[in-house]
């Protein structure tokens, strides 16, 4: 028996998937031409699934800031934060995040994934209990496992279920930590944060909130959903990422907890990895200003999001949640999801394909994400292509006298 035989069924499933067309989990962007355009397999495509909510990846000021930092500080830090990898720029960005999020303290991480791992595994320990939303992102599950705490999973977006579970474990020793996301990345649904905060506080538990997808998009200046709802002071720790609205790679955790600075010596995901690139810090510092002053970007984003959401619904597609920057189109099964995904790509539209077990409730999704940078022409092209491919694959019904499917390049 070979050491990798345990993955045989996964390999089989993948092999079957790619017989229908391109590999949804191995897409190569041969060139990136703008926040909304790339070249895949030699053909130009519109990007409708890249989490680039504010379209800042090609912002000239952010690029200039990164180039200056690259020239000034070099290509890498060659060390971790607790050794030689802390530059002035790391400290400055941590302070900038804390200030922007109205918190006393901030810590940054090389990726958003590590920010979640670090926040959870450092706050909770083996003698504590973690209560996590069933639909949590893998980084949250992984952080919980690293924490070594007892893990209790509650029903998705169900504060009453959390309440019951916290009550059942009232007598258990150790701290209680509740981990939720504000905007869920797969279905695009928003947590009932006010109720979660109430339940968490009533049970004396600590809340860690992941605002990866809501940062930059919700709140007066883009600080996220906790700010938008006036709940910022009630949430103990907030984690976020640079890789969505900030258009870079990295993550942050902010809090006003008086013991926060101790995490710098207890959080292994912070201590034992090379620190963030100076060029990345510089572009993010600049992007943070753009987010703060980004009312026009948020207006464009929400206009595009509502337009695409409502018109995709109008075409007969089933969308999993009310309008948000994440539009999850639900497909009935594996075959239709894969056919639809390939049809879109063949006709110049890239979205994410999400299938079980990576999705909640065995759903097959075309996970689309909206960008402020999508032009009205691109929005029209996206909608026309969804309609044509949807009708061709039978995902939505035929419309009399529609010539739509004849426009398809190939399926």
């Amino acid at each position, binding site marked *: 028996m070979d050491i990798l035989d345990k993955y045989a069924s996964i390999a089989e499933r993948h092999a079957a998937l790619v017989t229908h067309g391109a590999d949804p989990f191995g897409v190569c962007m041969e060139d990136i031409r703008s926040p909304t355009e790339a070249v895949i397999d030699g053909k130009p495509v519109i990007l409708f699934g890249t989490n680039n909510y504010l379209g800042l990846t090609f912002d000239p000021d952010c690029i200039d800031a990164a180039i200056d930092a690259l020239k000034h500080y070099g290509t890498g830090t060659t060390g971790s934060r607790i050794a030689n990898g802390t530059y002035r720029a790391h400290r400055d960005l941590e302070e900038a995040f804390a200030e922007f999020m109205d918190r006393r303290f901030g810590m940054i991480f090389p990726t958003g994934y590590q920010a979640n791992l670090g926040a959870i595994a450092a706050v909770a320990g083996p003698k504590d*209990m973690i209560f996590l939303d*069933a639909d949590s992102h893998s980084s949250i599950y992984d952080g919980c*496992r690293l924490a070594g705490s*007892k*893990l*209790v*999973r509650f*029903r998705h977006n169900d504060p009453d279920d959390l309440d019951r*579970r916290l009550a*059942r*474990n009232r007598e258990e020793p150790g701290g209680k930590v509740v981990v939720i996301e504000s905007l869920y990345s797969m279905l695009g649904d928003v947590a009932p944060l006010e109720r979660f905060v109430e339940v968490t506080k009533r049970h004396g538990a600590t809340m860690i909130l992941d605002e990866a997808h809501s940062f930059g998009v919700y709140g007066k200046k883009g600080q996220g959903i906790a700010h938008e709802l006036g709940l910022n002071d009630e949430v103990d720790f907030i984690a976020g990422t640079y890789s969505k609205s900030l258009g870079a790679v990295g993550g942050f955790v902010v809090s006003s907890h008086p013991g926060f600075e101790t995490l710098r010596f207890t959080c292994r995901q912070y201590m034992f990895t090379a620190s963030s690139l100076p060029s990345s810090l510089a572009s993010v510092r600049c992007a943070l200003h753009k987010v703060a002053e980004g009312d026009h970007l948020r207006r464009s984003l929400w206009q595009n999001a509502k337009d695409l959401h409502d018109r995709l619904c109008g075409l007969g597609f089933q969308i999993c949640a009310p309008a948000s920057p994440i539009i999850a189109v639900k497909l009935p099964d594996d075959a239709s999801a894969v056919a639809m995904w390939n049809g879109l790509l063949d006709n110049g539209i890239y979205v994410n394909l999400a299938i*079980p*077990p990576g999705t*909640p409730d*065995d759903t097959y999704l075309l996970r689309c994400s909206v960008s402020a940078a999508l032009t009205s022409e691109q929005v029209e092209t996206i909608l026309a292509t969804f309609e044509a491919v949807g009708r061709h694959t039978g995902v939505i019904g035929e419309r009399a006298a529609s010539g739509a499917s004849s426009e398809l390049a190939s399926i």
Partner: protein
Amino acid sequence: MAGDLDEVCAEIITLLEPFNKTGVEIKPETDLAADLEMDSVAAMNLVMEVEDKYDIDIPINLLSDVTCPRDLAQLVEKQLNR
């Protein structure tokens, strides 16, 4: 409401039916992953049903040793008798 192991096992098998994609007869020793093709998320969802049924919490980090309904029944018994 601590029941004996067989009773708990029978109840788990009933709760398992909606997850049974393969249509095989579920027995106490049926392998959840190999025989029923349950993935990790489905297994955790089953546990939620079991938790609701018995009004208990089964920490998901205890599930790595569970391969069949009988293993899960033993965990339920343990939580009920705490």
